[in-house]
Structure formats: C-alpha cells, structure tokens
C-alpha cells in the first residue's frame, strides 16, 4: 500500500477552526461558541488514505465538511493546489469543487429522491462541463459499472436501491468529476454489516485504480485500520495523535488513543476475557466550554498539574520510538 503514497501533501490544513456561534436573547447576541474544530493541522498526502477517528461530537465530520468549504471556516487555512480554500470566493470555490468530492454518511438522505440515478451522476458533469454533452451519458454508465452497479439501472430512482447500492451511487457521483481528493464521512456506518466490507473494498480498489486520495472519517476503528495508511485521532476539536497506521494502533502514545483502542473487541473469546480495557471516567466535556490546558485532562489517568494549565502541542515522538522512523505525533505532556 505504502508504495502508492508519495510524501507530497495534496492538501494542507493549518490551524483550522470552526466555531458555531451560540446566540441567545431577544437581540440574538452571541454569548459563546461551540468550538467544534479548534485548531487542527494536518496534511493529506497524495495517494494515501488518512483515517480520521474519534468519538461522536469530537469534530471529525466538521473538519471534513470545512475542508471542502461545505461549512464556513472560522479561521485557518486549507491549501489545495496552491490555493487557500478558506479564502476563495463562491465562483472560485465552485470551480475547485470538481477536484474534491465527498461521500456522505447517510445514503438515504444524500441522494435527491426526485432525480434518477443517471441525472444524479451526470449533474456534476453538466455543471463543470466535463466531456462533450453527448458523451456524458456514456460516462455515467461507465461510472456505474466502475462502482459495481448495473448500467441499465440508469433511469431508476434512488428508492429502488438498497443501502449499499445507494452508497455506490454516492461514490459514483463523487467520482464523476475525476477528483483527486475524496472525503468520505462515515461512509459505511449507515450500512448493514454484511455490506460494509463490500463498500470498503470498493473504495480501496478505486483508490488503487484511479490514484485517489482519501480522507476517511470514521469511528469504526477496525475499518480505519484496514483501509488507512495513516491515522489521526481527534478529541474535542483537536488532533491528539497522528502517525502511520501500525505505530498508532500498536504503540499508541496518547492516553486517549490507548483508551479508544482498548475498546476494540477481539474476536477470540479467550483473549477477549483477558483483554484489559481502559475505561474512561466521565463524559466528553461541552465543546462550548472546553477544559483549560489539555482538553483531555479531566478524564486522563496520567493527568498532572501541567495538563490543567498548558495545552500540549502536537509533537513528533518518532525519535523515542525505535521501531519506526516515520513521524508519529502526539499531543501529550507525558507521552
């Protein structure tokens, strides 16, 4: 897998913040903000699959949406093909949309129920004037074949398909403009378990065949381990750990990552019985009022006084890990 991955960054996210204002009262004054994403920086390298994991509400979907400017960015920059997406105007943004596409979580609500499969897939081709008008329908059928749909279903409506098939339609639609980056926001969590593997494998194959770059947002750790080259772990709007897949899964450096990974069940019942789980105390704090210092300190078994005061920076720890020479970042004072 790694042979496909260059070291060149396709998209660089720097100090991305997405805050949702909380307005109260008669005059709708802003009384605070939900800091969904609070200073996130990472690169997605050309050709890789970067897994973005974390529990519900940690800001991973918001990060994905903001990267494609489907949400307004509060501050920070998103460098993609020498442009800062965060500061593009609507016209430039629309043009850049053809290079980056999204696969959504819910294959039921993400397809317009009144459009046929064909018109759903062909629409981006028409918008961006890709190919001669006469060839677009043929291209649509090719795309359907590519994702494993029968091209003769081109005139059917989304409700005539199963969840897995609908997600294939969503993928075909995302591929229509020949994008270089695909952000997949929990692409399989709405699907039956039996279908999940098919869709994951489809995405892995497409990545290989078409040279795509994926940002895979998920809370399904096993799936992320299966498909990703690198993994970023988010907690309460910040990235707490980022590195190659195996080091992150085998020797996690951040106490939150350790707790998260310890929640993956083992299929072997004997091992499962002896498996040690790290149970975190308490709930995720409210993102409108995150704890000072390290966001994780109220629940962290390692927390000391410094964690309450200073927010730890994401720093490269690979020099202290002998088994790997690739960068392995973690944001922890005690890592």
């Amino acid at each position, binding site marked *: 897998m790694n042979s496909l991955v260059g070291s060149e960054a396709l998209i660089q996210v720097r100090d991305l913040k997405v805050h949702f204002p909380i307005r109260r009262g008669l005059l709708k004054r802003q009384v605070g903000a939900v800091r969904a994403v609070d200073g996130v920086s990472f690169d997605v390298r050309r050709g890789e699959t970067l897994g973005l994991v974390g529990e519900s509400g940690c800001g991973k979907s918001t990060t994905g949406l903001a990267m494609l400017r489907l949400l307004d960015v509060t501050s920070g920059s998103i460098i993609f093909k020498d442009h800062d997406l965060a500061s593009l105007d609507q016209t430039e943004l629309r043009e850049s949309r053809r290079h980056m596409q999204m696969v959504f979580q819910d294959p039921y*609500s993400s397809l317009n129920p009144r459009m046929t499969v064909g018109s759903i897939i062909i629409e981006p081709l028409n918008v961006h004037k890709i190919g001669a008008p006469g060839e677009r329908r043929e291209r649509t059928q090719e795309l359907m074949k590519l994702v494993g749909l029968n091209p003769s279903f081109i005139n059917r409506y989304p409700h005539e398909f199963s969840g897995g098939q609908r997600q294939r339609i969503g993928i075909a639609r995302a591929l229509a403009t020949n994008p270089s980056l695909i952000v997949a926001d929990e692409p399989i969590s709405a699907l039956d378990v039996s279908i999940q593997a098919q869709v994951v494998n489809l995405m892995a194959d497409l990545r290989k065949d078409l040279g795509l770059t994926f940002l895979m947002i998920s809370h399904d750790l096993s799936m992320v381990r299966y498909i990703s080259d690198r993994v970023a772990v988010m907690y309460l709007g910040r990235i707490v750990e980022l590195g190659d897949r195996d080091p992150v899964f085998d020797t996690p450096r951040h106490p939150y990552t350790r707790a998260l990974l310890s929640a993956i069940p083992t299929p072997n019942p004997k091992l499962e019985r002896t498996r040690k789980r790290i149970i975190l105390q308490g709930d995720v704090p409210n993102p409108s009022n995150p704890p000072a210092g390290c966001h994780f300190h109220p629940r962290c078994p390692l927390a000391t006084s410094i964690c309450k005061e200073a927010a730890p920076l994401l720093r490269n720890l690979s020099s202290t890990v002998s088994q790997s020479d690739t960068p392995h970042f973690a944001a922890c004072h005690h890592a």
Partner: protein
Amino acid sequence: MFNYILRRLLVSIPILIGITVIVFFIASQMPGDAVLAMISTDTPQAEDLVKLRRGQLGLDLPIYEQYGRWVGQLLHGNLGFSFQSGESVISVIAARLPATLELMGVALIIAIILGVFLGVVSALKQYSWLDYSFTFFGFAGISIPDFFLGMVLVYVFSIELGLLPSSGISTAGNAFSLSDNLRHLILPAFALGLARTASFMRYTRASVLEVMNNDYVRTARAKGLGERLVTTRHILRNALIPVVTVIGITLPTLFGGAVIIEVIFQWAGIGLMFINAVTGRDSPVIMGYVLLSAVIVLASNLITDIMYSVLDPRIRYD
C-alpha cells in the same frame, strides 16, 4: 394507475350515496318547507293551497319515497326543478357555476403565488426580520375569519378609499365587460385567498426548511452547483410536493368558503344560490349543491393523489 383511478371512482359511489342520504334527511328535518316559505298563512284558503302545492311538489310523500324519486331523476341525469322558480336545477347551477369558479380560481392563484413565494423567502431567510414579519402576518391570516377580512376590505377599499366596488359581479345597468367584472372580483378574491395564502406560506416554509437540511442539498453544493440551481433544482422541487397536497386539500374549503364570501359581496355564484335555497327550503337546489360539492371534494382528493404520484417518483399506485 388506470386500475387505481377506476377503483377510486367505484369507491366514491357509495360515499356519494351516503352523503346524499344523510343530507336529504337532515334537510327534511329543517323547520318549515318550501311551500310554507312561499305561501303566507294569511292568504285566504291557505290550508288548501298549501296542501295542493305540497301534493304537486311531492312533499306529502314519506321522506324515503321523496329520496327515491330524487335518486330516480338523478339516474336519468336530472337534478329536478327548483321549488321556488321552477327552473331545472342543472340549468340554475350551470348559470351560477362560472362566477364561483372565477372567484375560486382567482383566489387560489393569489394564494398559491403569494403563499409559495413568501414561504420560500421566509425559509431561505430563516429567523430574519423578514421571516418573523411573514410569520406574524401568516398567523394573523390564519386566525382572521374570511367574512371578517371581507368586511374589513370593504370598509377600507370601498367605503373609506372608494377605490373598488363592494358588491355584485358587475356594475348594475351597464353592459357586462371583463374589466368591470375583474374590478368587482378583486375584493372577494382577496378575502377568500388571503387566509389560504397564510396557510400555504406556513406549509411552504416548513417544507423548504425540512428539505434544506437534507444531505442531498449539501451534495448538490459539493457537486459545485451555484446557489440558484441548488435552490430551484434540489430544494424547491422536493419542497413543493407536500405543498401540492395542501393545495388539493384546500380546494373543498375554498368551495365552502366561497359561500360566505359570495353572500358578503353579493357575488352571484353558486354559494349565494345555495344560501337562497336554504332560506327558501328549496330542497332540489340544496341537493344539487350538496351533490356538486361532494363530487368536488372527492375529485380534488383523487386529483391530489394522482398529482402526488406524478411529482414524486417514490409514490406509485397500482
């Protein structure tokens, strides 16, 4: 689809029978009858006259027999003759119906255009001052009864400002002209249309808001569509489906509401005819009106269902 329509039409036959039976018997229970409404008891030999007239009209028969005679005529395509004028009910209705359809149609067009437009604006600018003021007027519009609104409109535009005529379908004594007719139409059409405007606006707003939050709208933006296309092609096309149903359901209430408006504005339509028939205990005319309104209700429900399947590919009847 054809079978579905046929089945719906067959089902509507017993419904129509039920409606006419119930209304016929209720109407017969009204105090007095057509003969007493026409012949004063002060008339010499009133009793004999009343008896004679009742015999001519068949009012001395038992009620089930009267109903049987009415149905018998109906099956021959005859709705009977008005007790008051002796004209055939069909020709009375045919003469009056165009005025009512004109009133209903214009009121409906006003309601659809205004209501859908304001609703869409309201939803796209959710929680703006515009949205709040539309919402306020929407509630006011739903809460104010038609007849009261009608009287307010007459007071303001006819009595105070003297801009528009307050009653009739055209100026008496003048030859009929369309512009004169339309001038008379404005106030009653608005009185009838504004309450529906408010409800269409509320439905449109709610429906647009619901669709706006669907992932496929976000998908459309992700495809690179401009906001105008996102709004027209993805939001409105889906949001207006439920609005069509509401319009269909509104048709019968529009027909009923027209009765009151026609009385207030002396609009010589079928509603005014109905009120006159009720005061005159003119049961053939009453029954003709009831039958017509029952058919309108059933037809608009059927048309709504058919429209629904045309607009929404997920709905198929068979």
